[in-house]
């Protein structure tokens, strides 16, 4: 998957084995340009694809003079990749912007996700505040990964403090371009979920 096609050629349809009957998902959220697509690409067996989620919702309670409901449509693009786990299961990874104004779109898209990765960079930590609050409120398990562009010597503990992150939430450094590193983030997430499951069973 190292081809660098310069033209927007049609992606070949790459089917899953016919026996696959169980799809799982993991959400990767973060601000624009933080490396969500890069992380997905590093581990995906297909070149990341993108599509759009659209939602029409009523306005904020102010009726206009004609009594016509004030509706507006929001369309936000997201991308995704996939990993075939075995003969019966496939894992989809969704990369989506995590700012507050988009979450009403993602609640449905992410519903039933195994967990989430919040990708942060230290130049724009504020972009992830809402995502963290929202995931906590929803009780969706998540880890925070600092995509290290080599921009400074921020210690992870400084980042944890700046994000006001619960000590129980794993925080790790990664290089989203690197397959092993990206893989490590997903493994950290699943191990975290597993420990939560074990705790809940006690």
């Amino acid at each position: 998957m190292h081809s660098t096609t310069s033209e927007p050629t049609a992606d070949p349809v790459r089917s899953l084995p016919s026996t696959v009957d169980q799809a799982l998902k993991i959400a990767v959220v973060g601000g624009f340009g933080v490396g969500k697509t890069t992380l997905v690409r590093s581990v995906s067996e297909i070149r990341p694809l993108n599509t759009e989620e659209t939602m029409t919702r009523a306005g904020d309670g102010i009726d206009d003079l004609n009594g016509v409901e004030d509706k507006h449509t929001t369309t936000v693009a997201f991308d995704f990749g996939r990993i075939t786990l075995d003969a019966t299961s496939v894992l989809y990874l969704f990369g989506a912007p995590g700012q507050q104004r988009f979450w009403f779109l993602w609640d449905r898209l992410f519903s039933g996700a195994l967990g989430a990765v919040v990708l942060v960079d230290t130049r724009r930590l504020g972009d992830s505040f809402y995502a963290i609050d929202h995931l906590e409120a929803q009780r969706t398990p998540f880890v925070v990964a600092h995509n290290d562009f080599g921009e400074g010597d921020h210690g992870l503990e400084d980042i944890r403090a700046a994000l006001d992150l619960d000590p129980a939430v794993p925080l790790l450094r990664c290089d989203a371009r690197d397959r092993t590193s990206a893989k490590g983030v997903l493994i950290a997430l699943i191990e975290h979920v597993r420990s939560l499951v074990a705790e809940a069973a006690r």
Partner: protein
Amino acid sequence: MTRSHRHETPDRLYVITSGRSDGADESLDAVTLIVAESEPTPDMQSEHAAILRTCRGPMAVVEVSAHLGLPLTVTRILLTDLLDTGRITARHPRTAPSPAHPLASPDVLEKVLVALHNL
């Protein structure tokens, strides 16, 4: 075939769905796997035919949407047409965590971990 819908006018999307903006099967999750149960026929709407060609093997709703170059909402409506006429079947996520049970089963997690380690 995968001309982006971003170059489409809203009218075009309106025509594709025959003016419908709802009526999609609500159980169609983004990762519900779609499998074609029949071959396209010449009299079929081109988007329906494209779905049947795309789903010769299992394919998640979100992936169908990307290959068609149509938004998820529009794709769900088209898939519902095909479900209603038995031309496709849907394999819904089975053990999805829910608000009442927010965590996945240990078996599923173990399977994911093994696969990730083997990547």
